């Protein structure tokens, strides 16, 4: 329920912004920014589920991991759709120029490509079919999430506070996955 609310909130937000600012250009830019922001927030939240569950000693965060991740992927797709179709009219020359000029774009593409197999194999059926290989495949999240943050960091902006906060958070979440840290976090609080 919480995951559904978190996943749908950006859509409600965009609808509200559209009502406030129906100018197509401004709205188009807002879609670009808001979907990027929503995608990153949801992907990072999904990425945080396992360590947070471990710290809390609760299985509930793991239950929402998939939903958060899929919503994050959905917004990434809308983000790129908005970019390629609405903004650049699928003019490949323009897109290639952008990839050449703005290094953040290639990093964003890498993040999206890494997410594709994760989203495609997110169902229980695929999980069972792939068995151990499913776990291995889903290690791609270690590329997707850091690359998404890297994309944000490299947008050539002067103000990067939020991007650095994400970078710090994701670094912590990566550290939390190191075997000895994981063991430490997994211990019941009393023994820590």
């Amino acid at each position, binding site marked *: 329920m919480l995951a559904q609310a978190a996943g749908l909130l950006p859509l409600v937000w965009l609808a509200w912004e559209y009502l406030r*600012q129906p*100018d*197509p*250009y*401004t709205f*188009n*830019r807002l879609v670009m920014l808001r979907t990027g922001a929503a995608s990153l927030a949801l992907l990072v939240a999904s990425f945080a589920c396992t360590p947070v569950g471990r710290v809390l000693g609760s299985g509930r965060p793991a239950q929402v991991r998939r939903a958060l991740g899929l919503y994050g992927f959905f917004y990434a797709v809308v983000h790129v759709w908005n970019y390629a179709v*609405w*903004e*650049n*009219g699928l*003019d490949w*020359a*323009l897109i*290639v*120029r*952008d990839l050449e*000029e703005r290094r953040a774009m290639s990093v964003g593409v890498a993040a999206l490509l890494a997410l594709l197999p994760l989203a495609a194999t997110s169902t229980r059926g695929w999980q069972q079919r792939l068995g151990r290989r499913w776990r291995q495949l889903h290690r791609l999240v270690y590329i997707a999430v850091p690359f998404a943050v890297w994309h944000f960091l490299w*947008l*050539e*902006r*002067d*103000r990067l506070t939020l991007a650095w906060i994400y970078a710090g958070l994701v670094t912590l979440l990566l550290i939390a996955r190191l075997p000895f840290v994981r063991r430490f976090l997994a211990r019941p609080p009393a023994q820590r």
Partner: protein
Amino acid sequence: MSSKRLTRRQILKLAALGSLGGLAAACGSPATPTRAPTVPAPTATTRPAPSAVPTTAAAAPTSAPAATAAPSPTAVPLADEIAAAAGRFLSNLDEAGRAQATYAFADPERLRWHWTTPANFPRHGLPLRALTTAQRDYALALLQVSVSPAGFQKALDIMALQNDLGNDPELYYVTVFGEPGGAAPWGWRFEGHHLSRHLTVSGGSVAALPFFLGAWPTVSGAGLKAMEREEWAARELITALTGPAQTAALFQANTLTRHVTQNQAEVAPLESVGVLFGDLAPAQQALVDEIIRTYLATLPAALGEAQLAKLTAAGWENIRFGWAGPTEPRRPHYYRLQGPTFLLEHDNSRNGGTHIHSVWRDFTEDFGRHLG
């Protein structure tokens, strides 16, 4: 150091204070400015105030008046005014700041320029961000005397747009080349995202080319349109054309992906594309005239007039207007105006036709090459 973030209104206020402070300092009396600041009123939703360059004649003349009829670009007072403002700026810096802001005139840095963000192309010089309020006022006062009121307003608008982009509106760098006011040539540059202005002074003559103006978004969240006529006059022109004139003008169905001359130090004429000025109806010629004057109106009046005279001498009829890409608003497009002496490239191919890069180049006068 100031960590304060400036809004457009604050930039305007600072500029007004700057001109007051600068002038007062020049008069030796901080309390009694000799003239009112010339900062124009904010133009949040409309185009900047009309230019200092005359905007008479619906259609530009096709017969060239003698070049000598134009005011000389060697207007001594302007050179002196700029030198004095540069001197005030430098003398109010500390030793380290002065060293950071100054390069030798012959240094290759003078010709190294760009329009992108400093994050993408590091700038050298002193950014407004690193200056105290008083120093920043002197920097803006220097800019103010080096462009027209319309040019100054446009600079402030472009700087203010950075707020919409998550950029720092104070990351504009002042770089001085050589010694202001000395016998030897000297120059200075004001540059940051979407704004690049180059001044060269030699023997009392001033050159203010090339210059780059850009705007993204073309309409800000607050409704600011920093380069409205530069975009719309050209669109009105291309959509007014019919038949062979339109076929000639629309030289490519898709937009170019970027302006051709990029950040070259020296440019030669590009491929001759588009419709000739002489083949346009008077109302269409008036739009070409408007675009040209809108750009040149950002130069100090005497320099803008000199450019117009030069362009007239070379023949308006030899100017071509070419457009690439869709003609509807908010679709990626590019246009070019080229005459025997100058090139204007206006690229709006980014972000769905809402992101302008434009550059005015002169085949002989860029960076004051003609000043010797």
